[in-house]
């Protein structure tokens, strides 16, 4: 019995995978009806299901699969050609099989429905299309047999010959008959020729199946995710133990102990990476279901939609994959249902009748970006406003002053739906707000851009993994806290006079002027009531301000709003392993979890959204943001706007780089610079960071060779200001004379470049500023092609 169960379980897992492939293949074949390869794959899948179900005694499922197989047989043999009706019927077959499989999973039986109607349809389709496009089918027939034989690891004929049951010649004649167009299989031909008994063929086919199964089983195994989680936990512990041993061995003189701990270090790191990798899955595991969804929807709504994908093999942690499945499907449905117009509307608008849905996924700065764009009607801002007023979400006065981006974000409000009519797909008002909530739950963010008549793009940013995230470690009132990097915008440190005078009050609410905009401040110790003062008191009167020596402000983003979190100390960014809090602490909204630090102690992970809610930054923001013209969240500026880092370049010139390319700003002392050949490098966070001087990068207008910087960019005390940026897995430090500011600029005014390596120039703060083309420079400058491996990993 137990063994039977195992077989059934394996069958279920295997079949579910097979069905997913079928979905994909069927949508493919509709696009490319002549592809023998895809048809062959479909046929084999259905055939496998039929065979196994028969063996396991699920007769209803077997007869259904059989009907499908017969129809597919005709298609494969070219006696029928694919029509939309056939595809629909086959997709219905896939759904029916899926239903039966879940029935088997829960009850052990293949359900009560015998799908007589569907079987009938499948049969009728066989009848109706019997007039075959003969000539073509015959000519292609020969080539079609070959791949099938080639795919089997050992040809059937070979097995039979080896077992001595047939001769070479007999097989050769049979094969020749097949080549000549005989639709029967090799075994059938041989039996009919009287060369061997049917039982021998059956035995040989089984043998063939065994070798095939062995071949694929040798490379992969299935592992329970729980098992991987356990492994992940153990590796986490090992990392801690490793850290302690490293700390200890650093104080010892014993060379062999130091060596052994170094080795332990290396192995642990690789083990950690390896285990992480086992949990990674390509995003395609979610995406491959989407073409089917789109196809069904398009057929139902009389639209034509083409799905294109880029970055299918972008890896994500399994838990993240699970979490984005539903939101993603919803977004896709929305795009097809509301975004893309009917062929007639499209033609009238001068677009091709077929709509295009483009999915793109890529890694960026430890996160994964997913973009879903359509070339449909776009979002009508006026309709959005109108709807929001109707639903009482905003007032007409607010609507009048709302900017484009704010208006677009209204679609994420609960209870909002612009669909003129309620369809079975979407338009019930449970839509984008749920998508937004689900994405935010896993620490992601989303943003929408739309142009009326041209289409809509939804950009989703999600963490690579939920298990290990980069976070900033801060301390407040003697405790350490981790702030997830994803909600981090920038760090501001006020010293001396600034610390005393920089913070102002609006009737007791502390604010800081960040580049002209008022940034509300939240004192962490005050919010968490760790400073011994009940929160009901005014923040400004709190003791948190007693420390005037320096004020550390962590600028974070919660929802639409940014605010400054005032902490005692800012340490460093670290990769932390996220662990859930016990049920006793679930109700505290300011914490997202906890993590174990290198010294073995526990630190809490701050939930920035929760903090914002608690400190009422958010609720206030929701009311105010609608009317507030000035405050635009940094990450969400419209396409024309870009945030750039401003610095002083050679010859007192002003230059800037897009902030999105900058990882960190660092200062290195002159003495820490080492030379590697002609390269200047520094040791930085466990690896070697090549340094590049801005002057050396650019071609001078005057014809004076300047490869080596003529004037070292020393600011004071022999420190170098370095902009660290990362592109395509490699980092480099750009040495600049002085970092000036971070500003948001309208790139629409970009003037063409006057020299290489420059994107163009704009006017910032009344001065002409050249925008460095970092991407271009990375490709052209040899210094940046230094292989990037950690020092400790160099082998």
């Amino acid at each position: 019995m137990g063994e039977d169960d195992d077989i059934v379980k394996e069958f279920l897992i295997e079949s579910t995978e097979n069905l997913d492939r079928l979905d994909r293949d069927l949508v493919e074949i509709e696009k490319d009806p002549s592809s023998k390869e895809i048809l062959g794959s479909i046929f084999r899948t259905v055939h496998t299901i039929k065979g196994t179900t028969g063996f396991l005694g699920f007769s209803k499922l077997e007869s259904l699969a059989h009907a499908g197989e017969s129809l597919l047989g005709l298609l494969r043999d070219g006696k029928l050609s694919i029509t939309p009706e056939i595809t629909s019927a086959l997709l219905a077959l896939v759904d029916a099989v899926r239903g039966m499989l879940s029935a088997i999973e829960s009850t052990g039986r293949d359900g009560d429905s015998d799908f007589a109607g569907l079987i009938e349809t499948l049969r009728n389709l066989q009848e109706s299309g019997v007039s075959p496009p003969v000539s073509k089918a015959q000519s292609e027939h020969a080539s079609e047999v070959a791949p099938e034989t080639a795919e089997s690891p050992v040809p059937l004929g070979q097995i039979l010959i080896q077992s001595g049951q047939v001769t070479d010649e007999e097989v050769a004649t049979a094969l020749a008959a097949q080549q000549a167009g005989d639709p029967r299989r090799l075994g059938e031909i041989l039996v009919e020729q009287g060369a061997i008994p049917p039982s021998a063929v059956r035995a040989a086919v089984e043998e063939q199946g065994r070798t095939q199964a062995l071949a694929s089983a040798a490379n992969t195994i299935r592992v329970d995710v729980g098992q991987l989680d356990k492994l992940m936990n153990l590796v986490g512990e090992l990392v801690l133990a490793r850290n302690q041993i490293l700390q200890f061995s650093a104080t010892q003189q014993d060379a062999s102990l130091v060596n052994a701990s170094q080795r332990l270090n290396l192995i642990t790191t690789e083990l950690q990476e390896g285990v992480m990798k086992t949990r990674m899955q390509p995003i395609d595991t979610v995406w491959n279901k989407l073409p089917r969804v789109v196809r069904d929807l398009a057929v139902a709504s009389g639209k034509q939609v083409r799905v294109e994908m880029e970055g299918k093999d972008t890896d994500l942690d399994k838990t993240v994959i699970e979490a984005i499945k539903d939101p993603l499907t919803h977004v896709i449905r929305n795009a097809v249902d509301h975004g893309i117009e009917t062929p007639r509307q499209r033609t009238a608008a001068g677009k091709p009748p077929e709509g295009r849905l483009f999915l793109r996924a890529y890694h960026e700065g430890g996160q994964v970006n997913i973009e879903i764009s359509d070339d449909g009607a776009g979002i009508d801002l006026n309709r959005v406003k109108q709807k929001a007023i109707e639903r009482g979400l905003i007032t007409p006065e607010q609507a009048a002053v709302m900017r484009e981006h704010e208006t677009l974000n209204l679609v994420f409000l609960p209870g909002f739906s612009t669909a003129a009519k309620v369809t079975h797909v979407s338009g019930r008002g449970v839509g984008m707000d749920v998508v937004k909530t689900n994405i935010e739950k896993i620490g992601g963010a989303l943003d929408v851009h739309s142009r009326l008549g041209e289409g809509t793009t939804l950009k989703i940013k999600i963490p690579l993994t939920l298990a290990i995230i980069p976070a900033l470690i801060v301390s407040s009132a003697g405790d350490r806290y981790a702030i997830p990097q994803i909600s981090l915008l920038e760090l501001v440190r006020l010293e001396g006079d600034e610390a005393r005078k920089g913070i102002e009050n609006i009737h007791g609410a502390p604010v800081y002027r960040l580049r002209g905009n008022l940034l509300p401040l939240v004192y962490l110790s005050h919010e968490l009531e760790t400073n011994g003062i009940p929160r009901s008191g005014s923040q400004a009167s709190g003791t948190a301000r007693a420390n005037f020596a320096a004020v550390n402000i962590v600028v974070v983003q919660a929802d639409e709003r940014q605010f400054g979190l005032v902490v005692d100390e800012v340490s460093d960014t670290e990769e932390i392993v996220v662990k859930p809090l016990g049920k006793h602490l679930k109700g505290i909204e300011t914490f997202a979890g906890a993590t174990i630090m290198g010294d073995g102690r526990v630190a809490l992970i701050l939930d920035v959204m929760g903090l914002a809610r608690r400190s009422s930054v958010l609720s206030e923001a929701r009311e105010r943001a609608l009317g507030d013209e000035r405050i635009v969240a940094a990450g969400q500026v419209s396409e024309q706007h870009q945030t750039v880092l401003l610095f002083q370049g050679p010859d007192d010139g002003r230059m800037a780089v897009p902030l999105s390319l900058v990882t960190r700003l660092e200062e290195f002392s002159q003495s820490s610079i080492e030379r590697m050949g002609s390269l200047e490098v520094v040791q930085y966070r466990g690896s070697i960071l090549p340094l590049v001087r801005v002057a050396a990068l650019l071609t001078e207008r005057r014809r004076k060779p300047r490869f080596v910087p003529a004037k070292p960019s020393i600011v004071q005390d022999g420190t170098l200001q370095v902009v660290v940026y990362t592109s395509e897995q490699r980092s480099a430090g750009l040495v600049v004379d002085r970092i000036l500011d971070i500003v948001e600029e309208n790139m629409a005014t970009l003037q063409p470049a006057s020299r290489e390596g420059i994107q163009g120039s704009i006017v910032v703060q009344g001065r002409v500023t050249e925008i460095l083309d970092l991407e271009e420079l990375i490709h052209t400058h040899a210094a940046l092609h230094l292989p990037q491996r950690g020092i400790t990993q160099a082998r």
Partner: protein
Amino acid sequence: LATGKQFLTFFVDYLYCGIEVEQVQEVLRYQEMTRVPLAPAVVRGLINLRGQIVTAIDLRRRLELSEAEKQHLPLNVVVRTDDARVSLLVDEIGDVVEVEEDTFERPPATLDRNTRALIRGVHKLSNRLMHVLDTQNVLNLEVETKGPGSGP
């Protein structure tokens, strides 16, 4: 063969308590804790139990006894619950004792109403009374005692 039940015993302030050994995973010496701001006062903090994060419940506070002296470091009795492990902070660990059903008695009606839910009864040992804790109620902070604790 003994038919009795085994209890791990410990002191919380002056109270001699016991819980069934089956519920106890392990006993640990004092562990450094990370306090959790805004948490109920009975939650003393989080400890790192071989890579797992475990909530530590202050039994003195839970049973509404007096606060321990600052320099006294509590010990951890780690108990298993359905969903996670929780550490109970106690003052001193006693022996594992084996008791028979017939020494058990329900708490007297005069026991403080608030703590009644947390103490299932006592076992009359030869020299003292062992309070049998209702771990489930002790760990369920919704089973209110007298209201909010005395603050962190």
